[in-house]
């Protein structure tokens, strides 16, 4: 297969970037999208040019590191898949493919397709945890958990922190990511004691990082590779409202 690629090249956060054209040939349909970029980079290195910088690690759809905005869609055209799990057979021979980084004020560009998602870590540090020091735990089965709640918590906990929801959103809102963590912990009894504090602190940090507001468009849900649902955002709104207006919790 043969493709025309238009790839965003940008030296660093302080220089302007632009789309650069590349053509690539002899691509096998069983290659993953990242393996196709590997081949392109191999060609570039052999020519003495700077290869395209991009983030990746597990290549199994679980670490959340890969992050390409492909022809107008976060992680490309395949629903429920990360960039590393996208295969070239999803494209047609001769296609022109645009490859860009996640774009959001809170995710500054490092180089080419690589962005800084440290804001997500800081949101977790603000409250996305249960304060249980090592050694304090009681026997695990002393705390039965309703199976349905456990399953729902697991659905939300499946978020890989990739940031596609932010990239897909016209407001660059991080609500889906934040709501996934708040939901995971709010659905479990272990999360109860810090429930109010968590919702307030995580939302405050999200705002401080410069993410946009949620206007319920749903683009995040459509592009999320782990199919995190919008109901989580509704739950976050409830959690937040309870904490802000119906409790005396302050952060």
């Amino acid at each position, binding site marked *: 297969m043969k493709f025309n690629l238009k790839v965003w090249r940008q030296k660093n956060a302080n220089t302007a970037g632009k789309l650069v054209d590349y053509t690539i040939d002899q691509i096998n*349909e069983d290659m993953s999208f990242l393996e196709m970029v590997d081949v392109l980079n191999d060609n570039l290195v052999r020519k003495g040019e700077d290869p395209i910088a991009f983030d990746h*690690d597990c290549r199994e759809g679980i670490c959340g590191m890969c992050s390409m905005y492909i022809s107008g869609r976060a992680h490309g055209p395949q629903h429920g898949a990360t960039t590393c799990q996208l295969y070239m057979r999803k494209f047609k021979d001769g296609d022109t493919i645009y490859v860009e980084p996640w774009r959001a004020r809170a995710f500054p560009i490092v180089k080419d397709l690589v962005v800084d998602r440290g804001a997500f*870590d800081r949101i977790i540090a603000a409250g996305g945890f249960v304060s249980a020091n090592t050694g304090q735990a009681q026997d695990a089965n002393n705390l039965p958990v309703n199976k349905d709640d456990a399953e729902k918590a697991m659905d939300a906990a499946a978020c*890989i922190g990739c940031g596609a929801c932010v990239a897909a959103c016209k407001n660059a809102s991080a609500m889906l990511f934040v709501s996934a963590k708040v939901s995971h912990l709010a659905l479990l009894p272990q999360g109860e004691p810090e429930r109010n504090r968590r919702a307030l602190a995580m939302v405050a940090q999200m705002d401080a990082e410069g993410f946009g507001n949620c206007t319920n468009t749903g683009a995040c849900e459509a592009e999320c590779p782990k199919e995190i649902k919008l109901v989580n955002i509704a739950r976050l709104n409830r959690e937040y409202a309870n904490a802000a207006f119906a409790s005396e919790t302050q952060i």
Partner: protein
Amino acid sequence: MATLDSKIPEGPLDEKWSSYKEHAKLVNPANKRRLEVIVVGTGLAGASAAASLAELGYKVKTFCFQDSPRRAHSIAAQGGINSAKNYKNDGDSVHRLFYDTIKGGDFRAREANVYRLAEVSVNIIDQCVAQGVPFAREYGGMLDNRSFGGAQVSRTFYARGQTGQQLLLGAYQALERQIGLGNVTQYSRHEMVDVVTIDGKARGIIAKDLKTGKLERHFGHAVLLCTGGYGNVFFLSTNAMGSNVTAAWKAYKKGACFANPCYTQIHPTCIPVTGDYQSKLTLMSESLRNDGRVWVPKSAEDAKAIREGKKGPLDIKEEDRDYYLERKYPSFGNLCPRDIASRAAKEACDDGRGVGKTGLAVYLDFADAINRLGVDVVKARYGELFPMYQNITNQDPLKTPMMIYPAVHYTMGGLWVDYELMTSVQGLYALGEANFSDHGANRLGASALMQGLADGYFVIPYTIGNYLSGDIFTKPIDLNHPAFVEAENAAQERMQKLMSIKGKRTVDDFHKALGKIMWEYCGMARSAEGLTKARKMIQDLRKEFWSDVAVPGEINDFNPELDKAMRVADFLEQGELMVVDALNRNESCGGHYRVEFQDQGEAKRDDEQYAYVAAWEFTGVDAEPILNKEELKYENIKLQVRSYK
């Protein structure tokens, strides 16, 4: 020669750990605040250690090369984590888990360490549940378990097919909490490129800020390496792309012994290699062997016809199929241990009966299970796995058998550590897959997660105090100390050298070439002849690398190719040590199979001569390493032949 004191406490096996804890020296809270600990790696081992130490009051710095600590390779673990909870009332106990793990490791692990691992396995589950890890549950609200290879009880806890992810997120959240509280400083996109030792003690590291390419000096009263395994020396493996040996290798070059480097685990059920462009191999969970039947055609002609596309698997009649695991190991059948299933697949393919375009694949067939249980049950049982397979290969395993082949998965070898997890360098510790301690020559499924968390949550918090209590008067060492300057200069020179070669071959070219040598000669079947040849080939390849590698870009910049080159340079040295170790071990045990030492295809151990840990000591890149031996003493169990027939 290094002196290897394993520091195993006196007393009966089941009292060693509690007696150690009672006698270990303590550090008072005020002093802890003055003690700085560097933790390299934020996988299960690193994140759990860093969070726990910070909770105790130590000042901690953590490092990882990914853009967030949450992305460590532990995130990819699927199956589950073992624990001797005996929630199923099926006769499990600490002793049974201990015994299964020792036996699974083909009697090449240390008794005292494995016993402690089994003991603390119980606390791990409690801790993780308290953090909110959403383990699978039964309708009554209690925790669910599944069975894994090498055990007759149900002791594996799991969170769908994402156990590693959920355990890591639990540890990551505990770590982020400590970061938020200001007790931990996290350095993401930072790669450790050297350990700094002063007067024989580890005192810090040199780290490369991958965003800017600049080198930094960091001081610590102690340094913990939690940097994972080195399976990527084979280029193709189930490990994440960035997994590397650099941190452990630098420690080795600074005096830490490297133990049993040849013990590698090759997992039998992975998606086969299809082309040269392939960058990694994907694991298909061991659980599939509960219902899948492994076979190849009986005749080489049929196999050839399949490879050429003239026949498909469904054209091969039942009587013309060889269900070779069931034939060879009637009592365990398709569920025999990983090392054995892998070797059998290789034999079938070497015999000309492999399938797939390359001939390096065997079938894993669900047709019987579907007939017996119906499509829906089979689909539900293996959830995500079938769609994942279909997405990668474009074939539907419900209609045609899966194709699988063994792939490198885990490394049992690693830095030698004593009972306290300290390497042979004072103040330098190794935790998780980076050390060698608990799995002997073969690791059982669901025990790596257990070991990583045991080391981080429940072992190091006690053992580090025993060392640091003697260090409370040491002030932070000036970063201009000659040892820091020298280490930084050496790293800088190495980078400059790599950039200045401007050769013709890419880093991946070399990495792939190394991987081929390792796989061919130091993979599933090894021989003295092949290993001797391989050693020479690796030495030659290393020379070529240092004269012909092409590293583009700039040195003081975000430059992933340079980072890769630095890792591959270390693999090119470490691969040789693996070969040396494999050559030294004139026996077959677990994942190490020497064709000269077998009994009709079954591994033949030599307990008389090789019941020891081979701990190698560095003497120079092109010099012979020194072999130190730690005898393995079995006081509580009897060595036996592992039979699965």
